[in-house]
């Protein structure tokens, strides 16, 4: 009987081997997916109960984990929650996370590869591993000025240091209290979430950089830059400016809000008075491809690498002549985030060099050792420096004597551009203002979603201009 017994033994060995091989296969192939599955409560609970690092401005924590005796060991809490919600984002058990809480979750949780050694030491020494803290680039003065300036109106403000790309202000209103979502009381978090989601004002939307809107006349900065590069214009070049422009292959007739004459105006005049017909014609003369190329250099249609929550702004793929004319003045299918428009202003102010925007300057381990820090990075040279200087000069003129006079700050050289954009005839128009100042070196975009104003650029400038001025003033 020994022969068959040996064969049975081989069969038993094969079965045991199959168990071991399957376990090994599971550990290598299945475990990573299983641990990444959101339904894996073990992982989610452990993450939520982790001692996450703080989000700081200077030495002031915006968000930090505090020890509690509740269901989870730590409770995430936010100081000045509404003011900084668009920066920190929320961190919740059931509803995911957003903002820096999302984009830096591995560093904050201490699970990033760069922290592997800290983690190993913590495990070996029996310490609870602790996450790294991150320092934001936000300037609290600018943030507060932007928040106060919006005064509760639906909208957003983004301010960038145009030499480095550091985000100095990032406000989106209406805001919300991330503490309500981060609470360890999960049923209260659910109630809060439901009411925030149902809120018709959309407080969870990050209007500063995660939403895109028709930019209207502020897009004329892109059109003007493209036209100068393509058609070799100068601010004093005369361009056609009809009282009314019948759009090619269309019944639409474009008009101006401010009288721009009925013959020609200088490019500078056209920008100062935001002449629609002049810029529509300029767009037609520059051409579809050149205009799109210029927009894409600024970041439109591009997935820019940045730690700022990013929604890609849009310049339409293919336009006929009428659509091109409308696109040139920021209508039709053109849509941009306030961050994108601040980047347009910052590239102009920085002599054509567009810097990558960033929100976090340093990541520091719990022992304050620097894990990583951001080095200012150029996205590219988006126009010739001379073009940029001409653009700067014209934008300064807009604030000195054009539609943007409301953004003046005595003693400072400020350039700007106003805009209003109609998204839907039934809705009030969006008001825009983008600006830069030479000292402090900052580019600002102000966007007001529901301005309750008549449809004119002067009105846009009147509402949004002072907010930009206040932000610049705060940084002095």
């Amino acid at each position: 009987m020994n022969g068959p017994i040996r064969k049975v033994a081989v069969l038993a060995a094969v079965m045991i081997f199959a168990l071991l091989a399957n376990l090994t296969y599971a550990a290598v192939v299945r475990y990573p997916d299983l641990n990444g599955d959101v339904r894996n409560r073990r992982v989610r609970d452990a993450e939520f109960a982790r001692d996450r690092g703080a989000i700081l401005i200077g030495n002031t924590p915006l968000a930090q984990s505090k020890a509690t005796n509740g269901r989870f060991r730590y409770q995430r809490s936010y100081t000045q929650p509404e003011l900084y919600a668009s920066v920190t984002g929320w961190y919740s058990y059931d509803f995911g996370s957003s903002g820096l809480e999302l984009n830096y979750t591995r560093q904050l949780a201490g699970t990033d590869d760069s922290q592997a050694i800290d983690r190993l030491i913590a495990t070996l020494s029996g310490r609870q591993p602790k996450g790294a803290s991150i320092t934001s680039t936000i300037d609290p003065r600018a943030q507060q000025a932007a928040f106060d300036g919006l005064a509760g109106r639906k909208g957003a403000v983004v301010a960038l240091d145009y030499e480095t790309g550091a985000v100095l202000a990032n406000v989106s209103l209406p805001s919300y209290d991330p503490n309500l979502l981060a609470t360890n009381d999960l049923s209260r978090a659910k109630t809060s979430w439901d009411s925030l989601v149902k809120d018709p004002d959309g407080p969870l939307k990050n209007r500063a950089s995660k939403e895109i809107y028709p930019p209207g006349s502020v897009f004329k900065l892109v059109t003007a830059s493209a036209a100068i590069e393509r058609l070799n214009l100068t601010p004093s070049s005369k361009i056609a400016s009809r009282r009314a422009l019948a759009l090619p292959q269309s019944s639409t007739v474009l008009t101006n809000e401010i009288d721009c004459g009925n013959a020609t105006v200088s490019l500078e005049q056209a920008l100062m008075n935001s002449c629609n017909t002049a810029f529509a014609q300029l767009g037609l003369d520059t051409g579809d491809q050149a205009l799109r190329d210029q927009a894409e250099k600024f970041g439109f249609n591009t997935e820019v690498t940045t730690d700022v929550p990013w929604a890609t702004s849009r310049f339409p793929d293919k336009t006929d002549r009428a659509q091109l004319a409308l696109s040139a003045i920021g209508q039709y299918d053109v849509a941009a985030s306030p961050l994108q428009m601040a980047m347009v202003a910052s590239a102009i102010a920085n002599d054509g060099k567009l810097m990558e925007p960033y929100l976090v300057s340093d990541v520091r381990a719990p022992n304050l050792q620097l894990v990583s820090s951001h080095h200012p990075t150029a996205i590219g040279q988006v126009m010739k420096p001379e073009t940029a200087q001409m653009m700067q000069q014209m934008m300064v003129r807009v604030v000195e004597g054009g539609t943007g006079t409301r953004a003046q700050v005595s003693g400072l050289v400020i350039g700007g551009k106003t805009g209003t954009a109609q998204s839907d005839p039934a809705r009030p128009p969006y008001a825009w203002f983008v600006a830069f100042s030479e000292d402090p070196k900052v580019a600002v975009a102000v966007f007001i979603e529901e301005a309750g104003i008549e449809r004119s650029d002067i009105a846009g400038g009147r509402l949004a201009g002072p907010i930009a001025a206040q932000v610049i003033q705060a940084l002095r």
Partner: protein
Amino acid sequence: MSAASLPAVGQTVVYRKRRNVELAMVLLACTLGLGGWLLTEINLHGHAPTSWMRVSALWIGMAVACHLVVRWRLPYADPLILPCVIALNGLGLAMIHRIDLIPSPPRDDAVMQFVWTGLGMLLFAAVALFVRDPRRLQRFPYLLFIAGVGLLLLPLVPGLGVSTLGANIWIRIGPMSFQPSEVAKILLAFAFAAYLVDKREVLALSGFRLGPIQFPRLRDLGPIALMWVACMLVLVFQNDLGTALLFFGLFVIMLYVATERPGWPIVGAALMAVGGWGAYLFTRHVRVRVSSWLHPFENYDQNLQVISGQFGMAWGGLTGRGWGLGRPGLTPLAKSDFISAAIGEEVGLFGLVAVVMLYAYIVARGLRMALASHDPYLKLLACGLSFTFALQVFAIIGGVTRLLPLTGLTTPFMSQGGSSMIANWTIIGVMLVISHHARRPMVATARLDEPTATDLRLDETHVITAKPVPAGGVTA
């Protein structure tokens, strides 16, 4: 060892007893279970329980008592089976206690399991003390067979059977519930061995040839057909795929070993495939098991148990969360069917692999004693019991780790349940009795059943020859 140094006829072969090795290994094995228990308590409560001295003394005392019984009555028995069993049993108790602590207030199932372990050890001791000659069990094959099948089908008796989680494999008498298939396993192994030893010549010699393989006569198919029908009844009416496979596998393997005809396992495998396919087509139960094996995530709620077990093991990773630090309680039936998942979660892949290896070791030692036995009945019995053990471990751990569809078999010595515990301890008792018989000193003869040279070589570290020792004789 060369064939030349085989014991000559007339020499006495004396195996080493190695009882001190067993004692040392038993003490080592005790530390595994106790370690798990103490780590759980320390990790959860910060200190060892006040009773740790008493409990440790009790557990070590019980284990050493088992050892002493073996030392006294079965001195030549295999020295490593008992330590493996003690280790597995201790780990199981520790894990059940750990899972007891999850609900609030904690449960005390581990105490009951401890009592069952004690009863199991008593039965083990009773077998060791009173079964002096295991061959006497050969006398009543039909009685044992009827008793075994009767027990197997007992849960189908109205009023006795209890349906738990879709499987009717329990009987309930008053407050006591019992899984009779566990006892039936022992009785049927005895009955098969006795029957097959009796009939093996008839079953082996007659039949027809198909190519190189000899197939049995149709009229000899009676017993296998009967067994198949009994197993199909279990499958269809008790919804218990695992038990059906286990018993049929046991029978087929013993038939093969007894007759040495590969035709039998081929017929058996074909029958099993037909039965399995039929069950898949006609019972919902089997279809559900198969779909939760192949595509667990397609029906999250239905397959919650399998999925949660996977999540737990993934979260445990290679080294586990540590005793008391995982969350095995999230998986339904973590104490019984899914105890290996709980081990994987808290002691990690390494721990689970170690547990599988302990089982593999018991199986290997069991099969080795089957090879070394002289008596065909004991050979067959040892082989059958060892293989059932392997099959059971393969089925349940394979099911939990998604190598196979999940079947409701118990994890021997570990999962919660009294009937399985006492049955398995009894089996170990019988195996050690067989082992003692196989290894006790006896005069080498030229009998037909004498182990061949290769068999002895398998056991070479244990064999010594005594009086007279030839020059250059066999030493260990």
